């Protein structure tokens, strides 16, 4: 283990420690928070954010960003809900598959535009975000699909317990494993880090960048599609505004997890911990009787503190004579030191 990865692990340990400290702190004020049921509930609540943050992490590692995840989630979720409502006899796996496929296709559209047409990710996903959100309205005619229209099995699945743990948690667990394998042990994942660290070098060594980007955004879309079904089933309602603004929460989870928005760095553990941290804050506020209106403000403060800490970690060892505002170099470039 070299020094750099030690440093990265230190950051994650710090984050994990602060999550534990937060849980204990809240538990001291309100012991009900640290009961098994409450913690299990917390875990279930955090799963959607964890999955989306993992997919977003892969995107951010390539120096991109996917602002369309929440809209994609809403569109896939609405499609799943309408499909289930109009064909109550359809087996559940077919519906989930449909939502996943729709999400994948929407993600691949992003990927094609960003990878093959070489357009800036932020602009493309800003555009598709509006389009997908509008399509939810077109698809549903602005109407709500509420719980009594959906089949029993459709709603029950996410919260059904298997071996004492909800299906949501199992799915998130599988996604975490898949992301861990993809990021740390596959050629695909390694290529993503190369693309994010030094795009021009990645091109020189023959990494098929367009193809990699296509599938990175495809994966992001796929996860958003699956989460779309899970979201709709979990909350038993589908409407045009579901998950509105959630893309920022997902990016916030990544930022808190130490994933550098400038690309090239980011770990599975970071994304998971970042998402957990936000979920703990969200669940703790009502328990300690703080107005839920504080949640957004606190989230903002946490993001700022997290980026400040991460930036300090990345500070260069060498002294720069002329202070420059460089875009977060993770490695010291030609440290300038006096001979003395």
């Amino acid at each position: 283990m070299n020094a750099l990865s030690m440093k990265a692990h230190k950051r994650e340990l710090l984050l994990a420690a602060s999550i534990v400290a937060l849980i204990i702190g809240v538990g001291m004020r309100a012991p009900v928070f640290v009961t098994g049921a409450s913690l299990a509930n917390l875990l279930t609540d955090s799963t959607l954010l964890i999955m989306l943050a993992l997919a977003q992490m892969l995107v951010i590692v390539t120096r991109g960003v996917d602002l369309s995840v929440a809209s994609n989630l809403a569109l896939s979720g609405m499609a799943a809900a309408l499909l289930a409502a109009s064909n109550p006899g359809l087996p559940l796996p077919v519906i989930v598959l449909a939502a996943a496929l729709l999400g994948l296709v929407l993600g691949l559209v992003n990927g094609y535009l960003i990878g093959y047409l070489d357009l800036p990710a932020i602009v493309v996903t800003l555009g598709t975000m509006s389009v997908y959100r509008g399509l939810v309205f077109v698809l549903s005619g602005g109407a709500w699909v509420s719980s009594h229209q959906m089949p029993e099995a459709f709603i029950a699945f996410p919260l059904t317990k298997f071996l004492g743990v909800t299906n949501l948690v199992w799915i998130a667990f599988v996604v975490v494993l898949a992301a861990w394998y993809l990021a740390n042990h596959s050629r695909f994942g390694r290529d993503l880090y190369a693309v994010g660290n030094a795009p021009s070098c990645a091109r020189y060594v023959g990494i098929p960048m367009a193809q990699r980007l296509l599938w990175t955004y495809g994966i992001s879309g796929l996860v958003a599609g699956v989460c779309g079904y899970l979201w709709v089933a979990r909350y038993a309602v589908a409407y045009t505004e579901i998950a509105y603004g959630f893309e920022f929460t997902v990016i916030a989870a990544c930022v808190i997890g130490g994933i550098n928005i400038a690309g090239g760095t980011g770990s599975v553990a970071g994304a998971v911990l970042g998402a957990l941290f936000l979920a703990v804050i969200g669940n703790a506020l009502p328990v300690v009787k703080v107005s839920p209106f504080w949640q957004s403000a606190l989230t903002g403060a946490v993001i700022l503190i997290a980026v400040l800490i991460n930036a300090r970690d990345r500070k260069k060892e060498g002294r720069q004579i002329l202070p420059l505002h460089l875009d977060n170099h993770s490695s010291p470039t030609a440290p300038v030191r006096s001979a003395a």
Partner: protein
Amino acid sequence: MTATNTTAKPDSPDSPDSPDSPNAGGPAAKSRYTILDQPKLGIKGVLGKWETLLALLFLLAFVTNGMLLEHFLDPYNLADGTFNFSEKALIALPMALLIICREIDISVAGILALSSVAMGLAMNAGFPPASLLFVALATGVACGTLNGVLVTRFGLPAIVVTIGTVSLFRGLASVVLGDKAFTGYPQVMTDWGQGYFFDFIPREFVILLVFAAIFAFVLHATRWGRRIYAIGNNPIAARFSGIEVDRYRMVLFMLTGAMAGLAAFLLTGRIGSTRPNIAMGWELEVITMVILGGVSIAGGAGTIGGVMLAVLTLGTVTYGLSMANIPGIYMTIVIGLLLLVTIALPRLLRGKKVAK
């Protein structure tokens, strides 16, 4: 480039900043070479320009609407149609400067919400009506300063900082508001928010035009504007050539905050209340306006004229759709598609395969 000692005489006729350029102090010897600021004016250059394309798009949208909708061309209706974009466009102007400068501010709608809340608080505390504008502006500048300090002093990426602060500002606004709303704003705000000059031209639109002219002048005709382009093209080179890069960034963030405060004053006056969902999602609409206006997201390129054309085009389409009784959400599809098509089409038409 001249290899001799002769300094290039700054003789481009349209550069008012030439007295301040670094070599102005030297002997003004005539050089054999001149480096033009911009390509010479020609038919091909004009037609290939983004602004021309946008102007055509604007005309197309205008003519189509005029032919399809019978009351579209009614001057009073047209004048009222400007209400739906004036406030957003006011924020789009400084946002264009920020994006040209390689920064971005996602928190503008949060600043707007917080400024509106601050006005509500000040009003309830008994501030005189006329001072509310300054309350909004001060709040906006304070928020912009926070963004600016985090970006310049701590060297953090603007997109991350402002994603954090948008949550913070909107969160603070909703903490103050709870599930209530501020209403009963003084008449002076109503006058500016929904009033007219000569009973015909909306005041908001006039304010927008005035600010557009100011921003266009600053960006395209002053040393400051040219330096903003320089920073956007290459911040490091700009710093080495003696531009106070961080000061420019700081001022632009503060300016963006101030303009969001002004927009808050107008919007609050127009709708007459402050609610938690005020200006929800505006940040993305504002950024869309700027990008559609031909400002490069990578920085260093773009014009105020382009942004204003994009604003007018989007305004015309929105207004036409609302006259045709099409729900507002269809507008988001149109805006999104417009954005995607306008950036993808040139790339597809050129047909150049990306070497990947």
